[in-house]
């Protein structure tokens, strides 16, 4: 899909498989908003669901090979509950940190999904939160995109304020409702500056370094980007939410390629269809009419990469993950 040829250093990606289906419990996701990749192919998916289906608000734990593990968390204001869960991050022991944009707090669970602690309070003073949206953990610190305060704050893992950067605006180092945060291997910080339709890069100290992207639909342009990840080669992956695509940028911000979705039925999807034979027919007729609907991403809310070169896209409205592999060698297609 690359619009021009840059040579062998350019990356290509192949669709591998999908995981999940739309479901309010168990083997599927409902309006998932973020995910985290753990050890042993584990993926944690936070489901926002919606108000009249509070049973769908939960964290689903499964593997990238579509094995269901468990789920935890529920709708509410109590400990270990969520109203508007927005982002998830893991520390090195695989403790789980989840932000809640409505309750203005971060909840910590252990790797079994047991509630450990919570921290955060609403406000605009240093260390207070107003709409914590994105999380990223680096060693013993956690970055929080404090969306309505238009800044990124850094805390210790137990919630002690360490530092912050950013302010409201559209200049360099300024934000308009930042959302996702990604880190590269050198500790640089990437923030999706959501309502400014761009990605900003900062060094470890929070000093602005670069800005990628402008509003629009062309390559390298964004429409409300909400998640950013960086792989071991330094390539940058952005979920370009309202453009229904993932854009891959080179470390210098140059556009490499975009992914728009290549979905094939997952195993859980097949299970669902087999017990609903009439829908098998309906689906087949629909595919003959238009196959794009099934393949394409719909409002992807997160993109994550792992060290195996897998790129995992949280294809939100369709309730599934689409998984790609980054090719090390050229692939003849």
């Amino acid at each position: 899909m690359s619009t021009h040829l840059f040579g062998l250093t350019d990356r290509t990606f192949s669709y591998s498989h999908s995981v999940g289906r739309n479901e309010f419990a168990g083997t599927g996701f409902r309006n998932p908003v973020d995910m985290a990749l753990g050890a042993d192919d584990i993926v944690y998916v936070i489901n926002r669901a919606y108000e009249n289906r509070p049973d769908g608000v939960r964290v689903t734990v499964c593997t990238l090979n579509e094995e269901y593990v468990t789920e935890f968390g529920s709708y509410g204001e109590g400990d270990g509950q969520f109203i508007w869960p927005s982002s998830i991050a893991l520390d090195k022991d695989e403790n789980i940190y989840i932000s809640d944009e409505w309750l203005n707090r971060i909840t910590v669970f252990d790797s079994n999904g047991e509630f450990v602690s919570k921290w955060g309070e609403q406000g605009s003073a240093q260390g207070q939160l107003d709409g914590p949206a994105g999380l990223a953990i680096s060693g013993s610190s956690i970055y929080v995109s404090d969306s309505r305060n238009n800044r990124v704050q850094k805390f210790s893992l137990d919630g002690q304020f360490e530092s912050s950067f950013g302010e409201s605006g559209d200049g360099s180092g300024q934000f308009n409702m930042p959302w996702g945060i990604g880190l590269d291997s050198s500790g640089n910080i990437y923030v999706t500056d959501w309502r400014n339709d761009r990605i900003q890069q900062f060094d470890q100290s929070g000093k602005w370094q670069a800005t990628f992207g402008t509003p629009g639909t062309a390559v390298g342009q964004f429409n409300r980007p909400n998640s950013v990840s960086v792989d071991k080669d330094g390539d940058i992956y952005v979920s370009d939410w309202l453009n229904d695509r993932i854009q891959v940028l080179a470390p210098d911000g140059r556009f490499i390629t975009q992914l728009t979705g290549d979905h094939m039925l997952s195993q859980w999807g097949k299970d669902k269809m087999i017990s609903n034979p009439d829908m098998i027919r309906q689906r087949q007729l629909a595919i003959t009419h238009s196959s794009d609907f099934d393949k394409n991403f719909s409002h992807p809310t997160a993109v994550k990469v792992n060290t195996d070169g897998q790129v995992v896209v949280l294809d939100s409205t369709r309730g599934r993950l689409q998984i790609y592999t980054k090719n090390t060698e050229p692939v003849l297609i």
Partner: protein
Amino acid sequence: MANNDIALMTHLLRRAGFGASRAEVESRAAQGYESTVEELLNPNDHPGIEEDLLFRYQPAYNEPAAIETNVQQWMYYMINNPRQLQEKVALFWHMIFCAGHSKIDSGQEMGLMIKMFRENGMGNFRDLLMLLSTSPGMIYYLDNSESHKTAVNENYGRELLELFSMGVGKDEEFNYSEDDVKACARAFTGWNIAPSYPPFPYGRSAWEFRFDPADHDESDKTFLGQTGNWNGEDILDMVCGQPATARFVARHLYNYFVADEVPVPSWRQTPPKDPELIEALEAAYFESNYDITAMLRVLFNSESFKNARYTKVKNPAEMVVSTLRLVGDHQDIKPGLFEISQEPKYMGMDLMNPPTVEGWHTGHEWIDSGTLVERINFASDYLGQTNLPGVKGIVDRLMSEGETISPKQFVDGCLDLVGQLQVTDETYGELVSHAEREGDLTHKSDTEQQDFVRRSGEMLQMIAATSEYQFG
């Protein structure tokens, strides 16, 4: 500012929208009546809902699937869309071009139909009928998907004429014959829906209109005296040129925006309440080549409209939304909209699911002993919440009237601030004597202030419970 300007503007914003806070009424009154009407009539010149924010906090509202989510999203739009007339018009068409979720079984299609009414409901009536006739939800609801060249299903053809455009008759005459119904239905054969993805496992695709020429009846049809190989579009052209259609649209606009009319089935025998205004609306219909906005311009600038204050029983959506706009709740995106979105249903108006193609019975028929309890409790619960910004604003204004206010001044102030509500002498007397039990109101000390706030909340609750508050 002259009191009458405020009263007139309150009336306009209540009818051409879902009411407004006193502050907005005052700024609109300063802007002027005709200028406000023009602003309402040209919604696309002004910003609407910030959808990116809405979808960020309520991701399920982006391409909403479940019926409940679609109703919630619409409720949010009704409360918050600055283009208020668009929402009012969407509700208007939903109450005439009735299709319901219980048959369609796709919340998404119901939401898309309302979106179509929102975006096109103030445009050209012929275009709107074309969109309606190609609306997959409507095609399915009225069985046009089951109407074939070899086996015609007359449902859509009939309802298009009877309920969506001409009406059965006017001035005691019939507008069309049974043969016209058959010809109309034949003209719409082949107007169908393309296959769509089922709900499982990843959610439905939006239904799409598809014309199947092989299933379309190509033979000659005689419709309203004209013979030819008519397709659906030809029918719409002929229908839109009929005086009956002008009358039908005019009476519906009058019934919804001006004053409760007799039920639609009686329109053939019963002349319009206000023949002069109806005539002016019919003239605007033809002069503008069927433009709904042109008709609304005539309507809102007419003396009949301006004088028709508190003459209509609020429908449940109006009751809920106007109360929330008055008290200033749910103007941010926040949890709780699901409960709100169910309230009209409790009051007898299950939005996106009218009981039949004939829609809801309106006017005083909205009210029975069950729905009245729901209406009163809802409105008085909200008006009694003195911490809500709109109610707080009312209390602040009451306090600003003086250090001491008499019970009578207090009642006058409350009635004024809930939208210059007009009440009968008996109701007024009861409210004043209720206020008199605790005497004058002052707000010097903290205790007096607390009393003032409490009494204001109680008085507003009583006003919300009056029979007069049922009118808008």
